[in-house]
């Protein structure tokens, strides 16, 4: 396997949805290629940062209006 092939397979590889022969070729490539090992690790780190991203938030005014609407409807 070449590096330019591996870098396109990373998402499939991480999904665990890869066919076994291809997965095996990836694993073998990773044992002999520092660059691709790093690439894979950086993909994982990128995903971890995205996962930990704090949300944007609604403006306070909009939030208050929604809480008001919730309260009003429940009173009916």
């Amino acid at each position, binding site marked *: 396997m*070449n*590096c*330019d*092939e591996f*870098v*396109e397979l*990373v*998402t*499939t590889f991480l*999904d665990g949805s890869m066919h076994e022969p291809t997965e095996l070729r990836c694993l073998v490539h990773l044992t002999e*290629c*520092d*660059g*691709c090992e*790093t*690439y894979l*690790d*950086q*993909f994982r*780190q*990128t*995903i971890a*940062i*995205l*996962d*930990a*991203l*704090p*949300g*944007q*938030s*609604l*403006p306070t005014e*909009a*939030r208050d*209006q*929604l*809480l008001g*609407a*919730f*309260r009003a*409807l*429940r*009173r009916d």
Partner: protein
Amino acid sequence: MAGARELPPDQVLVQRLRDGDEETFALVLNAWSGSMLRLAMSFVSTKASAEEAVQDTWLAVIRGISDFEGRSTLKTWVYRILVNTAKARGTKESRTVPFASLLPEEEGPTVDASRFRAPGEEYAGHWAVGQEPRPWHIPEDHVLRGEVREVITEAIDELPPRLRTVITLRDVAGYGSEEVCSLLEISPGNQRVLLHRARALLRRKLEEYLSGTHHVAGGRGRA
């Protein structure tokens, strides 16, 4: 999305919402509005319009919670309302994001060909000398970690809309592949292509940033 995992299970949530428990409503509002805003931005043209789409969605949730049948998770139900609401707004603003097929620019290699040894060379297709990714160091320091987040948030905003939609759902909001395919009516294969390209672009942005530019004030966004 951080924090979302601490919500009580669906059954409890839905019952409390039906009972008019304001604290629970505030809880889901806080937990989901952020990723909802980001998702809505993929369909509409302005931040204000995205905010309105999110507001409309919550109003629909308030009105419709008594009809929620639990055939999907509460979160999926809410996000589906949002996607429909935002799509409708986007159509009016003539900014739709159809997912039926891939655009030419969404296919093809996600890493610049110049980083690999050219065909015909020895070890063609392997990293070219000096082009292989080098391990990066994400600073533990809080301020810098905040900067890393800023870099990635900015990079998400700059993604083409369809890539932004898919990566927001998968990696920021934490949806599985199946849910995203059904929310966006997209095939698993195309979803994976879009997700992979989005991740590759964001990794590249981080690589640029972490390869030293952060030592220079305002040095982000180097080409």
